[in-house]
C-alpha cells in the first residue's frame, strides 16, 4: 500500500506533478535530513545537503529503476552527498595547511586533536560530538544501523559494499564509540 503510494508519487512527478515530489519529501525528508545531520554534524550543512539530495532526486528520478526501494536509493544519495561534502570540507582545510603527505591524507586531520579531546573531557559530550570523533565510514554505518534502523543487507545496498564490510565497520564503530562514551560518562 505504502509502496503503491510512493510509486504513484514518482509517476506523478515524472508526469509533471510537483505534488508528487512534495509527497516524497514529506515522507523521506526528515530521515534524509537526520542522516545528513548525523554524518556532517552541523545543521546548516545538513540543510544544504538535504537540498542537494532532492535536487539530485529531481535530476535522476527518470533513471530510478525500482531495483532497490526508493528509501534505499535516497539513503544512498544522502550518504554520498554527505560524505563528499565532508571530504571537500576537510580537503580545503588540508590544502590550506600546506602539509602534503600521503600518510596525513589517509588520517582524519582534526577528529582526535589534543584540543578536541580536552574539550570533550571538560564537559559531558553529547552524541553528536562523539559521532564526529569517529571515522566517516564507521560513523555512517553506525548512523544507518542504530539511528535509521536499517538492516545489514540494506546498509550494504546503500553503501554498495559487501555485508562483511558492513559487519566489520559496525563492529569497529561500536567499539570506538563505546570507548569514548565510557570515557566521558
Amino acid at each position, binding site marked *: 500500500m505504502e509502496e503503491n503510494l510512493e510509486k504513484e508519487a514518482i509517476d506523478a512527478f515524472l*508526469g509533471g*506533478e510537483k505534488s508528487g*515530489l512534495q509527497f516524497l519529501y514529506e515522507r523521506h525528508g526528515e530521515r534524509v535530513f537526520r542522516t545528513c545531520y548525523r554524518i556532517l554534524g552541523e545543521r546548516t550543512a545538513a*540543510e544544504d545537503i538535504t537540498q542537494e539530495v532532492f535536487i539530485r532526486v529531481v535530476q535522476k528520478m527518470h533513471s530510478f529503476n525500482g531495483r532497490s526501494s526508493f528509501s534505499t536509493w535516497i539513503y544512498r544519495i544522502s550518504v554520498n552527498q554527505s560524505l563528499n561534502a565532508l571530504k571537500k570540507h576537510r*580537503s580545503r582545510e588540508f590544502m590550506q595547511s600546506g602539509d602534503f603527505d600521503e600518510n596525513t591524507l589517509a588520517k582524519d586531520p582534526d577528529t582526535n586533536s589534543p584540543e578536541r579531546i580536552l574539550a570533550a573531557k571538560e564537559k559531558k559530550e553529547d552524541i553528536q560530538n562523539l559521532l564526529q570523533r569517529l571515522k566517516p565510514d564507521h560513523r555512517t554505518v*553506525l548512523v544507518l544501523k542504530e539511528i535509521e534502523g536499517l538492516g545489514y543487507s540494506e546498509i550494504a545496498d546503500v553503501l554498495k559494499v559487501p555485508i562483511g564490510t558492513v559487519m566489520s565497520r559496525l563492529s569497529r564503530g*561500536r567499539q570506538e564509540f563505546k570507548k569514548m562514551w565510557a570515557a566521558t560518562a
Partner: protein
Amino acid sequence: MDKKRHKTDDCSSVCDQLSPFFDGELDHKEMRCIEDHLRNCPECREEFELLGNLSKYLRVEGQKTPEPPVWTALEERIPIEKEVPKRYAFRKKSRISDGEANLTTGLSIWYRRFGYAAGLILIFTVTGYFLGINRGPDNARKETPREIAKTVPEPTAFALNPRHSLGDNLINLLQSQEEKSSGFKEFLAFSQAKEADVETLESQAGFKITVSEELPRGFEFDKCYILNSICCSSVYSSYNNGLEVISVFQQAPGHPFASNFNAYKNKDIGGVPCRVMEVNGFEVVQVNRERKNLLIVARQNVLDGEILTAALTSTGSH
C-alpha cells in the same frame, strides 16, 4: 593455565562476534554457541549488556535532531520544471470529466500545439548555433579536441596518444611506469579499488558525463570518473562537448609528466600562474601550491580559468 588461556581465546572470539550477534545477523549455529558462552561468562555478558545500552542510547538520542527544513523552503530552491500537460492526475487532484470538455478546452489544445512547435524551432535554432560554434575570444571557431586529435601525428616521446581518451593514456602511462616506482603501483591499485563518484563530478564541474556500467577499474575509455585516490584526484571527461581534463597530483619523483622541465613555459591561465608543456595535442600544466606540485593534463585549448579552478578544488577532495 591452559584452561585460562582457552577461556580467553573463546572470549576473544565471542567479543568479535558480539556485534552481529546483537543484531541477529549470525547463523543459527553461531548464535547458539554465543548464547551458551554468554550464559557462563559474566565478563562477556557484561560486554553484551554494554552493547545493548550503547545501541539504546544511540537509538534514542539519535532521533533528537533539529527540525528539518519545511517543504516550502525547499520548494523554491529546487529547480522543478513548469508543469506540463498531464496524462493523468495524482490522486489528490480531481480529474476533468468528459462532460467538462468545451470550446475553451479545444482552443487551449491548439495553443499548446503552437507552443510546442515554437519551442522545437527555438531548440533547433539554439542547438544549431552552439553546435556550429566553439569560438575563442576572437570569435574564430575553436577546434574541438577531437579535431585537434585527428591532426596530431602519432606520439613519440611521451605515451600520450591524442587518439585515445586521457583516461586511457594515463593508465597506459602509469602501467608502463609501474615497475619503476612503488608509489605508482600503490596509486594504480588504490585508484582501481575505488568506485567512481559521478554524481560528485557532475555537481562540482557541471560537465556532461557518460558512464560505463563496468566501473571497478576506475578508468574507462571516453568516459569520466573521479578517482578517490591519494595520488590521483579528479578526472573530468566529456567527449560530447569536447572537453577533457585530468588532474593528477605529483606524488613521486620521476613522474613521466614531471620530467623534462625545460620544456615548460610560463603561462597565466585565468589569473593562475602556471607552467605549461605542450605535447602531442595535450597541455601538461604545472601549478605550484607551497610544497605541493600539482600537474593537470588537458587537451590543448580547453583549459581555462574556471576549469582549472574546478580541477584544483576538486583534486583536494580525497
